[in-house]
């Protein structure tokens, strides 16, 4: 099955982005596909490479980047939501790309299931 994920919470704002990541990992482990992970609202903070949690703390940003590199998952960030929160190309973590809301809808159409995290 092909999943699209919609993430609207920041890594430190709650459980949603960690849950989204765990969901994506589990889906891939079981042979499913991830059509796209789309980051919106506070979710854009998942893509900020300047985030530097102290040693010993989990870095959600780095984990997403690793997932993109190792498993080829498409990580798309809404440009308007990003700019509003100080996220742009210059501080975009590896593996993420700047995108627009149309790509969220496209993913929702292409995927068998759209799963929303946050809100």
């Amino acid at each position, binding site marked *: 099955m092909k999943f699209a994920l*919609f993430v*609207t919470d920041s890594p430190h704002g709650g459980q949603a982005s960690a849950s989204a990541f765990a969901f994506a990992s589990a889906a891939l482990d079981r042979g499913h596909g991830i059509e796209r992970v789309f980051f*919106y*609202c*506070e979710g854009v903070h998942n893509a900020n490479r300047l985030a530097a949690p102290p040693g010993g703390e989990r870095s959600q940003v780095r984990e997403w980047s690793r997932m993109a590199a190792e498993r080829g998952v498409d990580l798309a960030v809404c440009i*308007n*939501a990003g700019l509003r929160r100080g996220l742009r190309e210059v501080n975009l973590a590896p593996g993420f790309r700047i995108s627009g*809301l*149309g790509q*969220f*809808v*496209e993913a*929702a*159409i292409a995927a068998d*299931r*759209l*799963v*929303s995290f*946050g*809100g």
Partner: protein
Amino acid sequence: MARPKKLAFLCRRAPLDGGNAAEILEAVLIAAAFDQEVHILFVDDGVYQLVDGQRPDPIGARGLEGGFAEFADLDIDHVWVERESLAARGLAGTKFAFDAAPVGRAEIAALLAGMDAVIGA
């Protein structure tokens, strides 16, 4: 073309709670512009988003009326507001910026069960 997806946006937060309401409304409009079957449900504190006459500009926030005004052009006609949420907040009979259809909690469950996706917001 494949049949349009039924996408429900579940708006549960007050209009200025974190500023996400305006962004979610933007996503609603884009989904409708892509000819998907969009449903919007205002529940819990989300019902405050519908209250007419809000003036958020003095605190630098965006109002939602501009988004509501586009509903007709984009054929967004599945707009629901939960009766129980209105009653719990003393909002029954209030003037709304958009004329959402009142619906009971049990009906909402049935409505959501028929969706391809529910987007929490």
